[in-house]
């Protein structure tokens, strides 16, 4: 069914709901690359006017990708909570924006299971950045494994100690550096350079030893393919969290070598290990706008809507962490700082609205028109929006993946400016070992010698002070 909107003497026609959604999307290079972006600024605004008048029930009734063709569509519709949706079923997209601006946190929690990714994406397209921040800030998505992430007024950090050759001592050095800045409550999570199970085995033991010896209330994760982690669990290796990159269509997930049944199998295997102490959220997913187009599996749907569909893939697995790696994919999908900032706010909003624990890798590559100042801006906005977690990369320079993210220092900046605290269990641990004062501020003479002495594998290098 075509949609129409009249602007003065011109009638703008949109062939169907996917076309309307795509043209209503704030402009970005990926939708242009796909040939689905609005062709003029007026057309984009006409699409937004038109979309604002579409009832939410119509979006629910017209799947963008047919039910028969795609298991993500089937997952979305088969698990849709009609009871939760009833409260908003009478609204148009435009009404829904106003509903969200006035809703209480309790209301947002109640309706989350009734919100499909297409509904979240549609309303985000007519929201300004400040709307995305204000509403996301009211959404509470709290998860637990060995600590509690997502509480109001708190921000967690993934400590990302990547090393170009997975050298155990080098990785340990980065972990100790991050801990000394009070980072690592979201997860100590490594992207390995090698995907062999033998490398994985050594790294899993390293992380497990370190977390045990220092009695850190946090979790470790080696971010390797879900099938490799399954193999590791089958061999009895110490796996806290199962990681996987996911996307918003069945075909894009297939290009990652992942299916919904494989995710379910891995989730059940990790649950059975019962390694969490305060909760059992044991999945860690990563996503990013443009992945479906990159795989040629986008079905003519705009990249922001497909990103929200990835959160629908994550949602049934009750993940501890879902991370949108917003600027990693490159300028053919998000061209510059302005597009990356907008995308980061959209992703965080859509995930939180759907009840998914969104964090953000605030990042860019060297061929994007962006720099650390753009990251400062997005970081600050996400801090205001109540983002669950960010990355902590030494000096913001990932020497394995060759991109720039946020640093340990950046997390200190955000805490100081916005008064954000760490996960409560981790905060108590930092105070207990004498790294921070009772208010969470770093003490000038921290226990670095003790950290180094307790770290496995460093004393034989003469590094234990």
């Amino acid at each position, binding site marked *: 069914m075509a949609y129409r909107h009249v602007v003065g003497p011109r009638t703008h026609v949109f062939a169907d709901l996917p076309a309307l959604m795509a043209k209503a999307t704030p402009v970005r290079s990926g939708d242009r690359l796909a040939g689905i972006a609005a062709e003029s600024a007026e057309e984009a605004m006409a699409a937004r006017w038109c979309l604002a008048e579409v009832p939410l029930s119509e979006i629910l009734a017209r799947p963008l990708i047919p039910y028969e063709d795609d298991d993500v569509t089937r997952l979305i519709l088969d698990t849709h909570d009609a009871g939760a949706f009833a409260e908003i079923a009478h609204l148009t997209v435009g009404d829904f924006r106003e509903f969200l601006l006035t809703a209480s946190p309790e209301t947002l929690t109640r309706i989350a299971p009734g919100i499909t990714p297409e509904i979240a994406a549609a309303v985000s397209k007519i929201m300004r950045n400040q709307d995305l921040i204000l509403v996301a800030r009211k959404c509470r998505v709290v998860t637990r494994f060995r600590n509690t992430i997502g509480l109001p007024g708190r921000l967690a950090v993934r400590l990302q*100690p990547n090393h170009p050759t997975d050298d155990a001592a*080098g*990785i*340990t050095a980065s972990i100790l550096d991050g801990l000394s800045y009070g980072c690592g409550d979201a997860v100590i999570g490594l992207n390995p350079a090698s995907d062999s199970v033998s490398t994985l085995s050594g790294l899993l033991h390293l992380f497990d030893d370190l977390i045990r010896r220092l009695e850190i209330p946090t979790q470790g994760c080696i971010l390797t393919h879900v099938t490799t982690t399954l193999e590791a669990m089958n061999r009895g290796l110490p796996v806290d969290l199962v990681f996987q990159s996911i996307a918003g269509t069945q075909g894009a997930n297939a290009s990652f070598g992942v299916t919904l049944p494989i995710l379910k199998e891995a989730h059940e295997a990790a649950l059975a290990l019962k390694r969490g102490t305060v909760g059992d959220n044991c999945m860690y997913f990563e996503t990013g706008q443009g992945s479906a187009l990159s795989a040629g599996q986008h079905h003519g749907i705009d990249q922001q809507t497909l990103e929200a569909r990835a959160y629908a893939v994550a949602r049934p697995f009750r993940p501890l962490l879902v991370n949108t790696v917003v600027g990693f994919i490159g300028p053919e999908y998000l061209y510059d700082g302005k597009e990356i900032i907008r995308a980061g706010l959209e992703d965080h909003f859509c995930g939180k609205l759907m009840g998914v624990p969104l964090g953000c890798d605030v990042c860019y590559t060297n061929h994007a028109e962006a720099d*650390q100042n753009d990251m400062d801006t997005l970081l600050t906005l996400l801090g205001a929006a109540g983002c669950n977690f960010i990355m902590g990369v*030494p*000096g913001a*320079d990932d020497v394995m993946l060759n991109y720039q993210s946020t640093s340990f220092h950046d997390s200190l900046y955000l805490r100081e400016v916005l008064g954000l605290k760490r996960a409560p269990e981790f905060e108590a641990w930092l105070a207990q070992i004498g790294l921070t004062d009772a208010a969470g501020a770093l003490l000038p003479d921290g226990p670095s010698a003790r950290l180094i002495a307790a770290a496995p594998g460093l004393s034989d290098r003469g*590094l234990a*002070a």
Partner: protein
Amino acid sequence: MSGDGTQEDPWARLARLTPARIGLGRAGSGLPTREVLRFGLAHAQARDAVHTPLDGDAVTAEIAALGFETLAVASAAPDRATYLRRPDLGRALSEASRAALGARSNTSVDLALVVADGLSARAVHEGAAGFLAAFRPHIARAGWRLAPVVVATQGRVALGDGIGAALKARAAVVIIGERPGLSSPDSLGLYLTFEPRVGRSDAERNCISNVRPAGLSHDIAAFKLDWLLTQAFALGLSGVNLKDGSGPALEAAPSPVMIENGTQG
């Protein structure tokens, strides 16, 4: 403790264990000024590597001086801004270049070598001729028949598919500037495709990454490429089903640190 009895900052010792930026110190919640400036300089160099145009004439002259016949082509991306937004154009030949390649009376050869700017012209300026000089003896020893070395501007890896097909080559190797990291603005990637033709997927290629002075040396990279090409010709394929098993053959040689880099398409 160091020899003279003074206490060395333990973080300085840890920092030697990794190229990551650890032990930076802090000024309040921020970085010390020197670290802000060091980072800014590294980013500036990476940006310049992306945006500096390829000096095709100079690169062609250097390669010709090694005794290779050369050909210059351009992709369908007319400028850098378009190249960055439209990877599809960087993978296709410009109309003029397609016509020029088609007009040659090409006889079939074993190997087409394509030098392309990719995302770092600097890597090509500083490393392409040096790598070809290191690889030349391998070509001679194997007796591979060679097409002219193609120097391509605004090119991506898959540009080699159309070039290799036009030059009737059994295999194409694209020598291309990789996406610069903050500490690696000068890295070349080598992408091998058996039976190149338009539409090949990345899973059908083999990659040797991080070819640069601080990474994989030209000699080692040439050795690995020789090994992969020999295997590709013997097995009749390239890509995920051709695993790099050159390691054991290399063990006798003094081996530098080999690290994998991000690939780029």
